[in-house]
């Protein structure tokens, strides 16, 4: 049996902020279709790692390969065009635009029409936007200014915006942070369904081990910038050291 080609590969990736090693020699392998979770205490370097992958930050050392192509030197817009989409920890939307326009802008950009100066309605684009918003269950809020939606709904808009660029790899930075308990499981179900339908590779970081257990099949524990342990959710729960640094036992 041959192992599938990894979609994302990190080799000895490091990043320091003024002498503090935020990420230190991290190696990761994500094969296509995998659901990968990064867990770890606050300040472990999870968001930094995401920022390195999506180009918001530059690595000090190491290599990042996406579909066997080095991407560590590329800017965020180029990386996005290759097919990596992400959400941010603090929900990151366009608060003064309607939900529909939020997604339409993303679609226009994805089609390379973001700079078009023609004030036209594009029925196809609008229909796609409505479909995407229906996918995340927001079709009743199309014309609401996104800034007035609830926090959970804003996260959904962000997800729709992210999906508009048809990524191969979806990176979610704490998808359920600050979302109410009831909305949380809706969110988990939604992410699960979307990844299955669109055959996405998923990488997320999350504090709630319940969410991780439900969504992901592979977990890496990050502590002080390096990978402490890696394995299935059950494996990780068994590990002594992990319990000590993270699960607080």
């Amino acid at each position, binding site marked *: 049996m041959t192992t599938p080609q990894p979609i994302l590969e990190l080799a000895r990736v490091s990043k320091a902020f003024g002498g503090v090693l935020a990420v230190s020699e991290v190696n990761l392998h994500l094969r296509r279709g995998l659901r990968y979770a990064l867990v770890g205490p606050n300040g472990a370097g999870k968001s930094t790692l995401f920022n390195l992958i999506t180009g918001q930050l530059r690595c000090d050392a190491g290599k990042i390969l996406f579909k066997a192509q080095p991407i560590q030197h590329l800017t965020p817009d180029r990386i996005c*065009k290759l097919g990596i989409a992400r959400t941010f920890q603090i929900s*990151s939307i366009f608060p003064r635009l309607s939900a529909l326009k939020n997604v339409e802008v993303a679609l226009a950009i994805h089609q390379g029409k973001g700079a078009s100066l023609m004030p036209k309605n594009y029925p196809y684009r609008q229909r796609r936007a409505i479909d995407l918003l229906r996918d995340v269950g927001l079709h009743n809020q199309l014309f609401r200014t996104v800034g007035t939606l609830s926090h959970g709904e804003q996260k959904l808009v962000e997800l729709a915006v992210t999906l508009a660029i048809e990524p191969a790899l979806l990176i979610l930075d704490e998808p359920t942070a600050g979302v109410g308990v009831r909305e949380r499981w809706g969110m988990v179900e939604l992410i699960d369904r979307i990844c299955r339908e669109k055959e996405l590779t998923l990488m997320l970081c999350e504090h709630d081990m319940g969410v991780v257990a439900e969504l992901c099949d592979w977990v890496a524990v990050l502590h002080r910038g390096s990978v402490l342990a890696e394995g299935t959710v059950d494996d990780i729960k068994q590990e002594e050291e992990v319990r000590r640094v993270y699960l607080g036992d």
Partner: protein
Amino acid sequence: MESFSVIRFRRLKEIVLYPYAKVVAPLLIVLIVLPQFIPVIYIFQLDAIIIAVLFAVSLNLLMGYGGMISFGHAAYYSLAAYTTALLFNHHFVSFPLAFAAGPALAALGAAVLGVFVVRTGGHYFLMLTLAFSQLIFAVIYQWYELTKGDDGIAGLFVQGLLGKPINYYYFSLIVVVISLTLIYGVLHSAFGYTLQAIRDNPARVEALGVRVNRYKLLAFVIAGYFAGVAGSLFAFFNGQVSPEVAYWTQSAEPFMSVIIGGINSFFGPVLGAALYQVIGTQLSRVTQHSLLITGVVTLAVGLFFPRGIVGSIAELHIFERGERRSDDNTTADTGISEG
């Protein structure tokens, strides 16, 4: 699914297009008919107002929609005014050509400065645009051989049909209406919405695959171009240009108009500019202290209507309807359109 989308489109059309017609059409009719019945002095004033409106709206493209607070918009206004004036008077270029060259050079100036300033934001952006406009002012003021310095360039009169004030007014009106329509179109294009998205959240737009600075530069150039159109209009309207058109007070005028009218809507600066002009010219006829009143009005707007006059009216409407909805670019736009 199909019918669902179609319903939405129809609704969008109703909200965006129809209500504007209700406000804009009567206003246009007034602007067309009124000059036939008023003394020529008022025609001049009306002309000054519509030119100021274009100038303010071009600035609002940057401030309201691009989130770039510029305090040097006079740079492009004056570049165009002087280009037009010099070509027309000293080089005997025909009126249409001279008139078209002004905005083109203004856009070029905006492009040159834009390359540097779009990388910055906030106060830095404000200070750099101010510095550039003062630079233009200094050049105009001191390069006597070319610009005649403090004397300015006089004698800008179009021969023939446009020589009559009322005809020049109609010419201005046509140019301004076309320009505003173009700006409105740009703001409601994919580019316009992307620009607003950048204003709201640049990091997110970048993560969607956009070189943010290029978009900001394009917005900067477009704003510069239309400021230039206003500048060229002003040159022939005024009959002469002097260094004051490049001074920072000239930048303050559209700036105040945008603030008074409301930064969050397309028509805010239209109202703001009209108000600013009327206060400036009409009150100075009855009192020496018209600037004081301008100051008080601005202060009052800042204190009681922080979103500007149009923005606040729009907010009231939304409040009454008990919902917030945005079909278009901002809540303010919807508000006024349904008023």
